[in-house]
């Protein structure tokens, strides 16, 4: 019994490929490609055709025997983005087909351009050829083109050893005990936190050290969408907190509340790590969390 439906696979193929002679004009182009050069041919009217043709498409006149090296860089005039490459395509990751006006040419070469996404390309984007490892004299000796180098990523890393002396040391020793230390300027009548030795406004030495409570009010805040090693999750909120009795806000993380519920005037209190884990470091305070008290009217 025949199967139903009756279906057969049929393949059209020239095993081993189809041999073609190139003629002198296309042959010259392909020979130059094998030497990793791209040439165009000059027409009687002086235009440079790339890739070369035997006849000027505008007039039908045979081209001259003058070959001109062009590129290797060029400018994209039009492109289309292939999100799902086919087996026969030059690249197996998403890429663009582009018409490329090589420097010194009067017509456009059609080839593939590698890019991360279509937004990385535009009419006017400069591209350079990427050659195949072993050129053989074939249009695919040009593996593809890639955008001109317009930026690089350079790594920066230097190590430092920091030491807390002076006011910072006193402040951090306070934090280790679970106390926030500030200082008061007698002349300006302002309380600064963290503790400092001189008043930033009048320059007076600040002798008065005082302990501030760990409660305060959010004066302003920012919702951060980039991860930070110190933050609990993304997005996280960093805020200016005006500690009760202080005149200068201190920056800290806000926690135990969804980011979109944080607001100016919100009352907060420090969340300390357990006493056994405390060190002379701001890490002693995990973040500030809402107290649930009514909001404060900010001036």
């Amino acid at each position, binding site marked *: 019994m025949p199967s139903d439906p009756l279906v057969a696979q049929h393949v059209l193929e020239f095993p081993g490929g189809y041999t073609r002679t190139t003629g002198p004009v296309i042959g010259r182009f392909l020979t130059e490609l094998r030497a990793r050069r791209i040439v165009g041919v000059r027409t009687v009217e002086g235009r440079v055709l790339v890739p070369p043709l035997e006849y000027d*498409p505008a007039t039908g006149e045979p081209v001259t025997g003058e070959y001109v090296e062009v590129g290797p860089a060029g400018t994209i005039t*039009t492109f289309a983005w292939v999100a799902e490459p086919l087996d*026969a395509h030059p690249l197996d990751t998403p890429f663009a*087909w582009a*018409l490329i006006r090589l420097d010194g040419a009067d017509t456009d070469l059609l080839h593939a351009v590698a890019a991360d996404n279509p937004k990385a390309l535009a009419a006017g984007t400069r591209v350079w050829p990427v050659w195949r490892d072993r050129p053989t004299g074939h*249009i695919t000796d040009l593996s593809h083109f890639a955008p001109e180098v317009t930026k690089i990523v350079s790594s920066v890393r230097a190590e430092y050893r920091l030491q807390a002396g002076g006011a910072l040391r006193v402040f951090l020793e306070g934090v280790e005990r679970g106390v926030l230390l500030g200082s008061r300027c007698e002349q300006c009548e302002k309380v600064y936190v963290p503790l400092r030795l001189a008043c930033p406004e009048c320059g007076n030495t600040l002798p008065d050290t005082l302990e501030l409570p760990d409660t305060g009010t959010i004066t302003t805040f920012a919702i951060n969408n980039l991860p930070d090693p110190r933050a609990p999750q993304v997005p996280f909120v960093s805020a200016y907190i005006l500690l009760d009795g202080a005149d200068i806000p201190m920056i800290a993380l806000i926690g135990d509340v969804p980011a979109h519920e944080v607001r100016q005037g919100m009352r907060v209190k420090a969340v300390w790590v357990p006493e056994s884990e405390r060190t002379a470091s701001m890490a002693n305070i995990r973040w500030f969390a809402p107290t649930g008290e009514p909001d404060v009217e900010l001036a």
Partner: protein
Amino acid sequence: MRDVAIVAFAQTRHTGTDTGLSEHELIHPVISEVKERTGLRRFGFTCSGSCDYLAGAPFSFVSALDALAAWPPISESHVEMDGAWALYEAWVRLQHGDLDSALVYGFGKSSLGDLRTIMTLQLDPYYLAPLGLDQLSYAALQAAAVGAERQELDEIVRRSRADGRGNPYAFDLPDPSDEEFAVQPLRRTDVPPITDGAAAIVLAAGDLAGRLHANPAWIRGIAHRTEPHYLGMRDLARSASAADAGRAAGVGKGPVEVAELHAQFPHEEIILRQALDLGGETVINPSGGPLAANPVMAAGLIRIGEAARRIHDGTAGRTVAHAASGPCLQQNLVTVLEA
């Protein structure tokens, strides 16, 4: 010039998948239909258009001749192009003056393989075909060069598909809603449907035309022009060859009531309207056009048949038909028909 008219047109109810009919089985009904309409059993000249790469077999048009009655021997020719070019050859043959009738047909089954990559084989074998440049990719390059607003493109697809639903030979396709790209900037809904189908037309010269049809569609102008094959040597945003063919055929010598355009992608309609200088008074593709049914190698001939049908049924007095071939509207054939 001899007066030559279209006196009969028939097309298959196209399918989106292979029904298993061989090529001569596909064309036999439409040949029988135009024979019946005209009462002619024999024709002075016969010419067909098809593409061997669609079937993957050499000289595939020869076996299709079995549908015609080729014995006793007939005067016959074939173009490896859309049947519209077969019609042009038949029109030229009738200008010789010794024959009065011609049968023209075009056919293709694009469902047999992957049309997108099969059309790569029509590109030049030195610079383009080895890159694997496929049909949707080069059409997308042209769409990018045109740079039309998405809203205008969607409206062309929506209008074509709505008209297609009113055409019993075309498909019932949904309105554009798919945001997915085929090859950016072409969306999947910008791509014409894979279609198997055939069409036939009978041409008659002089008095014979009047005897075969009460309203013959007279060919008042017909011309075709071509452009360089290599895409980088052309301005893809415009069609100089369609404009030249339109001028040579005399499109602008009178008002155009209906234009049937062989626009397979919506941006091609924009290019062609501009090239043929078609204004708002011209109804474009009331059949739905290739976006509603695209039997490759018959779609251009169907444009001529649909433009003639408007004259046959008395709904239009002057129509224009356009057929295209080659990558990105490389070649364009324009026919002007009058009552």
